[in-house]
């Protein structure tokens, strides 16, 4: 994971863990706060803050002494949400280039054929 030090680090950790969950790299247990802090070279309290945020969003659950794990069904919800976000970004970028929704749809179908 590449960290951009000019942006809040805890937000980047939230993003990274969500991506790892949606890719299926993290299935059950989320790395412990300390392990991830040492892996990334960041303060453990920063990691803990990211985990608290994800717990609030219902992505992970944690129990004192038991660690943190992915909540049931969270992977699918996350994936859907992240795909939605990416599609929105895609449409927004192309719209700003002057493409209409119709043209974008046409473009998307073309991608489908190619792959």
């Amino acid at each position, binding site marked *: 994971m590449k960290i951009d*030090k000019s942006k809040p*680090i805890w937000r980047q950790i939230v993003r990274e863990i969500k991506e790892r969950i949606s890719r299926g790299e993290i299935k059950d247990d989320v790395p412990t706060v300390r392990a991830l802090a040492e892996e990334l070279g960041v303060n453990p*309290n920063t990691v803990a803050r990211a985990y608290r945020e994800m717990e609030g969003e219902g992505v992970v659950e944690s129990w004192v002494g038991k660690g943190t794990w992915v909540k049931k069904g969270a992977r699918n919800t996350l994936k859907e949400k992240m795909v939605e976000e990416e599609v929105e970004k895609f449409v927004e970028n192309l719209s700003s280039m002057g493409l209409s929704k119709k043209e974008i749809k046409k473009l998307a179908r073309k991608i489908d054929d190619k792959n």
Partner: protein
Amino acid sequence: MIKIKNLVKRYNEVYAINNISLDIEDGSFVGLVGPNGSGKTTLLKLIFGYCRPTSGEIKIDGSSPGVALKSKTAFYPEYDSTYHWMKARDLINWYSGFFSDWNKEKEKNLIDFFELPTHRYVAHLSKGLRAKLKLVLTLSRDAKTFLLDEPLSGIDPASRANITSGILKAYRERQTFIFSTHIVADAEMLFERTIFMKEGNIIIDGESDTLREEYGKSMEQIFKEDIYG
């Protein structure tokens, strides 16, 4: 909890610390960032009790710095150790005898992590290894507060990550760490909170991630553009 109120330290006509007020919560990891001569070392020395304030006060859990608190506070000095005639191992054994909170396991882990050749004489260690030895001496204790004065100064860029990883490994969430540095890039991700000093004053003080959001800059960029510049 460290509570500092209207702290002033004057050496003859020079104000090393110019009316600083500051609270540091237990368990926070604070970066004290500023150019040389900005008062960082003086502030750490005052907190440790190496010197006394000209005016104002410092309270650590309600008491003034002094002998009783030194047993709960570990200080990493920027100056080099003078025990060059000892072997690193003997120095560690001798030094550890002074502290009832010495943690043998931490000592071993740090020596392994830093790959410190403890059989060698201190005089024969490189500057980087002597810094690591000093870190072993400071961090192997289970102190409540750790004051690290410029642990990255004189360390070549390639070894800095190793030093900061070692410090991170030794850090426990309930301990308070204050880490002074003028080399920001290699250490800023350790700092939950960053305090920027200049000419004996605090210029910017905030949670590092909040500052990143507000300024859209890294701590290093804030230091270069808003403090130094």
